[in-house]
C-alpha cells in the first residue's frame, strides 16, 4: 500500500521529466530524423534567450512575485547593446548591455519597494507598466527601425561567437547558460541572501519577524531578473544578428510558462533553477517535435496555451494531493 503511494508521489513530482521522455519517444518513432546530431544542435541553439529569461524569472517567482517587464528589458537592452558596438567597441557594448539590464531590474525593484507593492497582483500590473515604458524607450531610441550587425564598422566577433560558436558538440550559448546556472544555483542554495529569497516567498511575515530586510531581498530578485533578461537579450541579438525594438514580445508568457511547467510553485517559496531548465527543455522540445511532425504554427500557439493551463492545473492538484 505504501509503495503505491510512493510511486504515485514520484510520478507526480517528476511529471515534466516524464513528459519530456514521452515526447522524445513518440517523436523519435514517428520521425527518426529527430535523433540526428543536427537536430540535437538545433535544440541546444534554441536554448538561448528563453532559458536565460526564464532562469531570472524563477527567482522572482520563488520570492513570491512576478515580473512582466522582461519584454521591455529584452527589447531595450538588445537595441542599446547593438548601437553601442560602433562607438565604444564590442566588449564595452556587452558590458554596458548587462549593466543596463541590471539597472532596469534594480529600478523595478526600487519602484516596487517605494510604492510598497507586496502582492503578486499589484506587482503584475506595475511591472506591466514598466515594460511598456522600457519598450517605448526602445522604440523611440531606434525610431522603430531594426538595427543590423552587418552594417557595423567595428568588429563584433564576441557576438558572433555567442550566437554561432561551438565548443565540441555544445554551442557557446549553452555553455554560458550552464555556467550562469551553476553560479546562480550556488548563490540560491548556499548563501544567506539566496535562502532569504525562498524565505520571502514562503512567508513574508515570518521572514520580516526573523529580522530579515525583505525590501532588500525584493530589490535583489528583480535585479537578478533584469541581469538575466539582459543576458538573454544579448544571446538573442547574437543569434539573429539584428536587434528589433519589439524583440522581447511574448518572452514574459514563455518565461513564466517555463518556470511553472518546470514545477516552481507560483505561490512562491519552493522551486529551483534546475526545474526551470527542465521546463524550458519541455517547451523547446514541444515546438521542435511539432515542427518535425509538421504541425501548423497556429496549432502550436494553441498547444502552448494548453500546456500552460494544464501544467498549472496539475501543479495545483499535486499540491493538494501531497498535503
Amino acid at each position, binding site marked *: 500500500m505504501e509503495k503505491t503511494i510512493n510511486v504515485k508521489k514520484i510520478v507526480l513530482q517528476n511529471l515534466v521529466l516524464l513528459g519530456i521522455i514521452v515526447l522524445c519517444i513518440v517523436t523519435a518513432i514517428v520521425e527518426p530524423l529527430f535523433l540526428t546530431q543536427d537536430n540535437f544542435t538545433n535544440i541546444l541553439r534554441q536554448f538561448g534567450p528563453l532559458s536565460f529569461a526564464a532562469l531570472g524569472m524563477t527567482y522572482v517567482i520563488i520570492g513570491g512575485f512576478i515580473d512582466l517587464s522582461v519584454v521591455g528589458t529584452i527589447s531595450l537592452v538588445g537595441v542599446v547593446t547593438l548601437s553601442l558596438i560602433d562607438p565604444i567597441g564590442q566588449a564595452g557594448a556587452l558590458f554596458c548591455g548587462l549593466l543596463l539590464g541590471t539597472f532596469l531590474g534594480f529600478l523595478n525593484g526600487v519602484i516596487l519597494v517605494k510604492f510598497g507593492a507586496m502582492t503578486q497582483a499589484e506587482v503584475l500590473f506595475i511591472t506591466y507598466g514598466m515594460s511598456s515604458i522600457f519598450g517605448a524607450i526602445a522604440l523611440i531610441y531606434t525610431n522603430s527601425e531594426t538595427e543590423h550587425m552587418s552594417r557595423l564598422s567595428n568588429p563584433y566577433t564576441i557576438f558572433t561567437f555567442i550566437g554561432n560558436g561551438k565548443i565540441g558538440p555544445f554551442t557557446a550559448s549553452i555553455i554560458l547558460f550552464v555556467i550562469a546556472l551553476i553560479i546562480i544555483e550556488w548563490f540560491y542554495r548556499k548563501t544567506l541572501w539566496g535562502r532569504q529569497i525562498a524565505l520571502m516567498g514562503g512567508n513574508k511575515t515570518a521572514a520580516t519577524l526573523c529580522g530579515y530586510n525583505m525590501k532588500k531581498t525584493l530589490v535583489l530578485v528583480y535585479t537578478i531578473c533584469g541581469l538575466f533578461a539582459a543576458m538573454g537579450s544579448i544571446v538573442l541579438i547574437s543569434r539573429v544578428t539584428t536587434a528589433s525594438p519589439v524583440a522581447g514580445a511574448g518572452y514574459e508568457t514563455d518565461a513564466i*510558462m517555463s518556470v511553472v511547467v518546470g514545477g516552481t510553485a507560483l505561490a512562491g517559496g519552493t522551486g529551483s533553477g534546475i526545474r526551470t531548465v527542465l521546463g524550458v527543455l519541455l517547451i523547446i522540445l514541444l515546438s521542435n517535435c511539432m515542427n518535425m511532425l509538421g504541425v501548423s504554427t497556429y496549432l502550436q500557439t494553441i498547444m502552448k496555451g494548453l500546456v500552460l493551463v494544464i501544467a498549472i492545473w496539475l501543479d495545483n492538484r499535486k499540491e493538494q494531493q501531497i498535503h
Partner: protein
Amino acid sequence: MSTKSVLIKTKKILLKQKAVLAILAMIVLMLFFDTQFFTVYNWLNIFRSVTVQGIIAMGVTMTVLCAACDLSVGGTMCLSGVIAVLMINFGVPIPIACLCALLSGALVGAVNGFLVVHQRTEPFIITLGMGTLLKGISQLLTDAHPIACTNMSFMQIANTKILGQIPILILYMLVIFLLFFWILRFTNYGRNCYAIGGNYEVAKYSGINTLAIKWSAFIISGAMAALAGILLSSRMNSASSVYGDNTGMLVNCGVVIGGTSFAGGVGGAAESFIGIFVLQLMTNCMDCLGIGSYVQELLQGIIIVLILGFDCYSRLKKREHA
C-alpha cells in the same frame, strides 16, 4: 461646517479618486492648447472609443470584485468576433451567429471559472494561458488573415446613429453600465460578490454560495468580452486574430486604476468605467496634441505605474496606521 473642513473633505475624496483627478487635470491641460479637443464630435468619439473596453471592463469588474482577475478577455473578444463573422459568412442568420459567439465567451468564462474556483488555481496565470490558447484558436480559424463580413446588415449593429449623430455604441455602453451598476449596488447577487471579495471565509460561513457566485462572475466576464468582440467586429465589419492583443492587460489595468482593488471587495461599475475612461481620454488628448505613438506608449506606461503605485502606497500607509 467650516470651509476648512470642506476643503479637507474635498482633498480626501480627490486623493481617493485619483482617476477623477487625472481626468480633471487632462481637461484643464487641454484648455491651454488650441485643438479640436472641445468639440462635440471629439467627445462623441471619445465615448465611442471607450465602449468596447468599457463593456469588457464591466465583466472584468465582477471577477476583480471576487478577488480574482480575468486576463483572457482579449482572446475571448477576438475569438467571439471571429466566430460571429465566420458563421454569418457561412449563411447563418445574424442573431443566431451572435448568440453562438456570446455562448463561446460564456463557455470560456465557465472553463476559467472551473479552473480558478473549483481547482483553486492562480487566476491571472491561468487566464493568461487561456488568452494564448484562444489567440491560437482564432489564428487557426482565420488562417491569421483578417476576414471581412459579406453580410452588410451585420455592420448595422454597431454603426447606426441615433438622435442625429450619437453613435448607437454609446447607447449599448450606457445600458450595460446601468445594468451592472444596478446589479452590483442593489441586488443580493451583487452585494454577495463584494462579500466574497472582502473576506472569502466569512462569506462562506455566512451561507453565501461562494463557489457558484465566483464561477458565475467568470461566466459573465467571458460573455461581456464576447459581446464586446461582436460589437468591435460589427464596427470594423471584419474579424481578425490580431484584435485584442493588449486588451486583457489594458482593461484589467483600467479597472484597477479606477479604484476597484485587486484585493477584492472594493470598487464598482462606476469606478471601473472611470478607469477605462482615463486611459482612453489620455490617448485622445495625446492624439489631439499630435504626440507620436511611441511617446504615447511611454506616457501611458508612466501613468499606469504612477496611479497603481500610489494606490499601493496609500494601502501601505493604511496598513502602517492600523
